[in-house]
């Protein structure tokens, strides 16, 4: 049933008794053309694009828990594309362009809200680095502009641009096309649209083994809901990708998993209209449509799989928020959680074929992969469908670590999310 105001109205008359399931929950079939491992936003998007754009509809998404239960449902939803390096610019802008029409494409309101991303520069070094970003983005045709401290405050009222704080704001870049979206809706929207095209979404279905034939190519996988035969597997299991790929004998991936925390305040009437990020003092903030201030920080320093983190990180994040917005000291934290982010050495993702025929991988998005959800899904689908990397994905292959062709956004730009 199509979603629209009219259908909502019609269903109000029948007390909403007739809404169908948003996605089917079928029993696993014995075989699929493609199986995607991981029912996060990325995996579901890949399945959707396989069906919608590449005509491959005999597809399953296997998820060990509930879809969106990983980082897709734990992140702070910042979407932007003003990255520094050309390969990253192309990747994230590819995604941003899909975001711009995603609600209509999926017929699901994912609440993409391009309210502008303000990135604060503190001190000379930041200004230097931001200038490089601006020039790089302009050359790439990606919108980004420089704001003086006064202009930044005009764009984000309440921002403390006083010269008396420890690290005064020296200016900011603004990407107006950037913004936030509703993370759960993205997951459900892709699930619903994919399911409607025939994709089977198999929850509570953990992959426990990957089968390979005598030629080394994949032939299927073992799951907690039985064996499934397939010749193509796309692994999109975020922090657990290493674990899954080891099942195919691929050894360990160049990934480190660390907790990343976020928190929300109690709901407040609108006060922060855009997204504000400060990488130098480690905090960023936006306000959800519900009114909660959504706040995040840098990663905890220790490698871990426990989805929780230390108080010192929360404290350090909130002291930075209170520096930027001193009138928020009395506002209260309502909920705090962590997710496990999968970091590569160059802080860029891994997307492409693997040495195992039929096995494809998409992971390593670390602290910043939500924004890539539609784009990464699309590129993974294209790569699986063609059997070779999509040109935008090509630089992000697994071989780059051995070759040394790193795409080091972190070193070059030191910006997360």
């Amino acid at each position, binding site marked *: 049933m199509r979603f629209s105001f009219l259908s909502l*109205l019609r269903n109000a008359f029948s007390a909403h008794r007739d809404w169908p399931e948003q996605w089917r929950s079928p029993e696993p079939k014995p075989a699929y053309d493609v199986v995607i491992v991981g029912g996060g936003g990325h995996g579901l998007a890949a399945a959707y694009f396989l069906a919608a754009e590449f005509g491959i509809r005999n597809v399953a998404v296997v998820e060990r828990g509930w879809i969106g239960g990983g980082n897709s449902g734990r992140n702070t939803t910042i979407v932007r594309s003003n990255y520094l390096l050309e390969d990253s610019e192309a990747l994230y802008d590819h995604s941003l362009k899909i975001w711009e029409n995603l609600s209509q494409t999926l017929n699901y309101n994912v609440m993409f809200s391009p309210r502008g991303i303000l990135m604060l520069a503190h001190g000379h070094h930041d200004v230097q680095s931001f200038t490089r970003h601006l020039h790089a983005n302009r*050359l*790439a045709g990606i919108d980004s502009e420089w704001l003086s401290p006064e202009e930044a405050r005009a764009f984000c009222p309440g921002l403390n641009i006083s010269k008396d704080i420890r690290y005064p704001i020296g200016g900011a870049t603004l990407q107006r096309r950037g913004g936030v979206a509703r993370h759960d809706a993205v997951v459900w929207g892709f699930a619903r649209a994919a399911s409607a095209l025939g994709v089977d979404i198999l929850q509570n279905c953990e992959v426990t083994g990957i089968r390979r034939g005598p030629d080394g190519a994949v032939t299927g996988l073992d799951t907690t809901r039985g064996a499934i035969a397939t010749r193509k597997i796309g692994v999109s299991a975020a922090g657990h990708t290493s674990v899954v790929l080891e099942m195919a004998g691929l050894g360990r991936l160049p990934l480190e998993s660390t907790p990343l925390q976020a928190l929300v305040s109690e709901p407040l009437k609108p006060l922060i209209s855009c997204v504000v990020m400060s990488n130098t003092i480690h905090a960023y903030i936006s306000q959800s449509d519900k009114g909660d201030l959504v706040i995040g920080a840098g990663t905890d320093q220790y490698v871990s799989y426990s989805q929780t983190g230390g108080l010192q990180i929360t404290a350090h994040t909130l002291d930075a928020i209170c520096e930027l917005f001193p009138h928020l000291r009395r506002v209260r*934290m309502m909920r705090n959680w962590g997710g496990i982010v999968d970091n590569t050495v160059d802080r860029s993702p891994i997307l492409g074929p693997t040495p195992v025929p039929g096995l494809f991988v998409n992971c390593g998005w670390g602290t910043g992969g939500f924004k890539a959800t539609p784009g990464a899904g699309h590129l993974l689908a294209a790569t699986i469908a063609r059997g070779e990397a999509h040109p935008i994905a090509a630089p992000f292959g697994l071989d780059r670590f051995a070759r040394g062709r790193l795409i080091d956004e972190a*070193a070059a730009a030191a910006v997360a999310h």
Partner: protein
Amino acid sequence: MTGPFRTPTGGRIDRTRPIAFTFDGRRYTGFQGDTLASALLAAGVKVVGRSFKYHRPRGLVSAGSDEPNALVTVIRDAGRTTPNLVANEVELREGLVAESQNRWPSLAFDVSAVNDLLSPIFVSGFYYKTFMWPKSFWSKVFEPVIRAAAGFGRAPTAADPDGYAQRFVHCDVLVAGGGPAGLAAALAAAESGARVILCDEGPEFGGSLLAEPAATIDSAPAAQWIAATLATLAAHPRVTLLTRTCAFGYYQDNFVALLERVTDHRAAPDPALPRECLWQVRAAQVVIAAGALERPLVFPDNDRPGVMLAGAARAWVNRWGVAAGARAVVYTASDSAYAAAHDLRSAGVEIVRILDLRPDGGPATAVARAAGLTVETGAGIDRVLGSTAVTGVVTARHRADGTTAAGETLACDLVLTSAGWTPSVHLFSQSRGRLRWDAARATFLPGTPHEAARSAGACNGTASLADCLDEGFAAGAAAARDAGHGAVAARRFAATGTAIDIGGFAGEAPHGGNRDRTRAFVDLQHDVTAKDIRLAVREGFRSIEHVKRYTTTGMATDQGKTSNINALAVAAAATGTSLPAVGLTTFRRPYTPVSFGAFAGASRGDLFDPVRRTPAHARATVAGAVFEDVGQWKRALCLPAPGESEGAAVAREVRSVRATVGLFDASTLGKIEVVGPDAATFLDRFYVNALAKLPVGRCRYVVATRDDGFVYDDGIVARLAPDRFHVTTTTGGAARVHALMEDFLQTEWPDLDVWATSITERWAVMAIQGPQARAVLAPLVEGLDLAPEAFPHMSVATCTVAGIPARLFRVSFTGELGFEVNVPADHGAALWDRLAARVAGHGGTLYGTEAMHVLRAEKGYVVVGQDTDGTLTPDDVGLGWAVGRAKADFVGKAGLARPDLAGPGRRQLVGLRVEDPEVVLVEGAQITADPAPPPGTHALGHVTSAYASPNLGRGIALAVVEDGRSRIGTIVHVPMPGGSIAATVVAPVFWDEEGRRLHA
């Protein structure tokens, strides 16, 4: 009397101390000891807030911090305005000003209440299905409207002037919760001699006992026992008692965070006191004694003001002397509500009827009947009448065949409900302890702990007062024992009091209404009804996490304290499974909301991050220095003379260093002393350079890479003795290079006998640079011949300078003859004085970091982090000569051997020369082959450094350019917003290429 609903006597309030306050601009009076909630109830205020989505009028439901409806803003002044406080947690104080929230123009008349009429459309998740057309309307029209309607309170408009404190403490036993179980636990632990912290979120200890004056412990009134216990605890020097202190977060390794509210309850707080204090407690053992929360029954229109928890009504009457109404209907599935009925009746409230959902009632039923109360079993409420206040209920009769029919109408102004009690397992669950399902009592209880924690009392499912006391005492004793203290004799308590009913009923109670249309509220604050949850399940949201997210149940400020189990039960019924099969959602910190300010503590302004100043900072200040932040350091950017502009000062400083001599404070440079028999081996492996054979008395410029082979830091390694090196790093790299050294020493080469010690603050460093440097320095130096042959470029020696023991380096970051004098930090200022005087005597200058940058750029020296960005190899930036290729191994050797780190296409450091000498390129500008690059053009590289060079009389720039060295002599373009600038690629050295001045 302070209101029509105040009882003539009773309660723990001080009736001799009336307190005036205002709510929504109206003046009221309460008593010392009242909360805002109890005072409003006493005054007959029924509506205290509006709900989130439908803006339904709402009244008080609970007397504790689990209250979902009564959120208020408390205002002292513009900066001291606190939104979203729970009225039960606001203690009355003289002059308190509180306002309701989420209504316009007033609580009584709220325009947004039209949402309630649209509720058939505004079901759970409706917003995912609409607002998609036209496309631009989402962020331009719909979203702003939704945003304005959502949210509760308003954030303050001015900066918060109050202070926040933090305490870091260790203890043997932390007891979270000061009810009977917690008090008994603290008593036992204290008797064993353990260091104990007992905290409770309320203003007084006693927990549930405060609402039960008739309870007795060891034959005395409970209040007496509490007082005696507190006196005993207070007398123990190792016990800390914290009221108004909530244990809100359980972190790893028994690290528990407590929030103490220090001044909010005071009429005129001492400005020296912090508003709140965040206690960060590392406890050897934790006893969780967090009690239980009463669950409301879920039935149609159960959200009307006047429908409240039975236990809450009982607390108000017994603890605060407030009878919440005149005529009450009690609707219960547990025995504990009967106690409320008795107590309210004693206070003069007419108990119209007790409707007991259980077919035969419980043990309390007969007692109530004997006392003359009317009890109907197998009955309930079909719906509630009234909108801004309850006016009556229609009863429901449950037939033997399982159907339910509407019964009679009962007029009343109060409905007390109780579905049973839910143990507060929040902290236990946060500690990652496993919960277990207790089928007998139909409840989740603490199972296997993950941390050194025990649960005692109601939070552990223990029902009677005596059992809670016994269990608390035993838990306290066991915790103290496990923390290494002596045994305490077991104790048993004799007690009388009401036992709470764990378990009971969960889910939507049976009623005769249409379940798809009537609204029986589960999550009151978020307006989530039972049918919303069923809709979610119908739409395929089966996992409880999905149900929660789709309906937002349990995600309000109360985090579902009163609603989660009911939501779970409705979902379980809809999916046809059981409660334990559905499972709980994760309990997330904090238990109750915590101010940002408490986390930030004193970390504001200058205390936000330590300010590091060099020993000569004050001297530079006197000399007129303009400072810049470099990491935590304050560094002199330039030192303008009075009236001189910064630009002019920099130009003068640069010229003066080349012409005569300059003095520069280089104390911020990172310094590491590397000592030990294997020190040379270690450094030889750590840096790319060959260092094993560095002679004593010599220095070498070094480059560090990480495993990846990219430039990470640079500096000087100086050999003071065969087994002792003085290593310098960049200012920003000091800590991370030291950490990397430790990393390798501890994990890769533990066999090496080496110590690496940070000595950055140990030494003040003054650089004397320029043709006159030797002349300035030599007369101050004793024990060393500075002649070029005796002390050539890249030498190091110990000597005395101006009578101060020194490590003297002959090094240069300017391209001029230069020395760096290291003296113990305490002597830094004195050395500065002597050198500054001599420099002035030679017509020289003091110079800052900006001049230093220009000088080094003229000479083509790179600044790591400016000319490099973590993606360039030593060879890329022209430092390939530094790499000891013959070495067996070094950090980064394998990385550098990867194919893409060599060969064509690498970006290489070059100089850029623009025809027009006035043009200074912009750092960060991109470089292209095309003079008019269309969007998406590949950049060959970017400008890394650009300055106006006073010595060359023109702009100079360094850049990294693809295959840059082979492009020397060719033209590239620097696209700027106003058009491209053409530049010639040149070698990156603009000054004294042969290095004659360096070796002078």
